[in-house]
């Protein structure tokens, strides 16, 4: 676990010094809100209906930045090779990278959410607190698959487009479920069917985290 925490510490330190990822993600999300606003000129009622989808589009498009960045910085100075040579299990490196990407993404999500609330004039209520587990579970699903696929695509010439091509279809179940859950919280009442769906997202997280953890060794190998 020490190696994983060391990677996490290093990544967070780099991020806090440069603020490269979070700032880019935040501004990009703002852009998405603006672009959506003038490409789909709709009434407030329709806007409320599409707001959950919009929130996740913003999260995920911006999340791509973070994922791309996460392994691109390692590649620049040949760090990837050194990491592969580290006398630790590949899974440790995966966990470290996963933790750093996830925490950076969560920070960005916390920063963009108030803007979302203001732009779409959402009514704050206690029910909104349920967004915390939903966003947490959705984000972890996205980053657990995203971290391993980012490590895959970093070896290619067309890193950024390839990560999107690989990750989008694979992560679509998570996006569908998360949008659904977010919609229930924002526009409706939480019913009994809410929790099984949330558990499904968590189950997905567990499956893909475990799988990625086991497979990560093969990615580092030369």
């Amino acid at each position, binding site marked *: 676990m020490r190696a994983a925490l060391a990677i996490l510490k290093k990544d967070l330190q780099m991020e806090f010094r440069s603020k490269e990822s979070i700032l880019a993600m935040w501004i990009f999300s703002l852009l998405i809100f603006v672009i959506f606003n003038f490409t789909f000129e709709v009434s407030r009622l329709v806007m409320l209906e599409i707001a959950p989808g919009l929130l996740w589009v913003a999260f995920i498009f911006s999340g791509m930045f973070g994922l791309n960045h996460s392994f691109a910085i390692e590649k620049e100075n040949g760090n990837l090779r050194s990491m592969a040579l580290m006398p630790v299990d590949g899974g440790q490196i995966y966990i470290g990278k996963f933790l750093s990407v996830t925490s950076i993404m969560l920070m960005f999500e916390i920063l963009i959410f108030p803007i979302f609330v203001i732009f779409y004039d959402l009514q704050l209520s206690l029910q909104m607190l349920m967004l915390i587990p939903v966003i947490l579970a959705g984000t972890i699903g996205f980053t657990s698959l995203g971290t391993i696929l980012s490590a895959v695509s970093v*070896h290619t010439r067309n890193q950024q487009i390839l990560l999107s091509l690989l990750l989008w279809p694979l992560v679509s179940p998570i996006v569908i479920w998360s949008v659904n859950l977010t919609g229930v919280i924002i526009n409706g009442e939480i019913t009994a069917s809410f929790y099984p769906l949330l558990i499904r997202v968590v189950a997905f997280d567990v499956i893909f985290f475990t799988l990625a953890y086991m*497979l990560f060794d093969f990615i580092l190998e030369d």
Partner: protein
Amino acid sequence: MRSRIDKILLTILLIAFLVSLYLVFLWVPQIKASNVSEQIAQKIFYYHVPSAWLGFLAFFIVFVASVAYLWKRERKYELISVASAEIGVLFITLVLITGPIWAKPVWGIWWTWDARLTSSLILWLIYVAFLMLRRYLPDGSKRANLSAVVGILGFVDVPIVYYSIRWWETQHPKAVMASSEGSLAAPMFIAFMFTLATFTLLYIFLMKKRYQLLVLEDQVNKQFKEMELL
């Protein structure tokens, strides 16, 4: 590398496809439908469903070969996974083409964002991405490793994708083979099974050919490298 087995296989395939066409279009009685175009469109079922099944089979083989590669590290498993992924994409492409051709006269639209349709499209996208990944990587053990990992992740995702979209209402006809409510009439069943067997044979034939081609490519590349060294 035209072996005798290939010739025999090809001959059987040619005959089988002719027989299948005869069974589907002439032998099986027409279904009762409100208009002729719907009756004709129904024939697509005999090619649409086997293509879908073989697409799944092909992707399952990708998964098995990917696991085998990571385990045994033999080049042949890598080649099998690539060949099967290519053919799987081909079959699912056929599904995505024949589906709308059927839907237009029956539903009145080419495409709808229905559960079954959407998940098939996502499935197609997953394996197209798999093939794109290989295109962007230089040949070598790195490529083999990375694509095997994606081959495994992709296949594990397939049932989840289907599951995640299932709560949508589906317009897609029910699985007539497995459900109790609607079952196929005997002649339809025979024609269907025959076509399915023919398609399976086609898959085997294509796999064999594609695999041989990949092996040949390897040999040519190896000889080029040796010449460069000289």
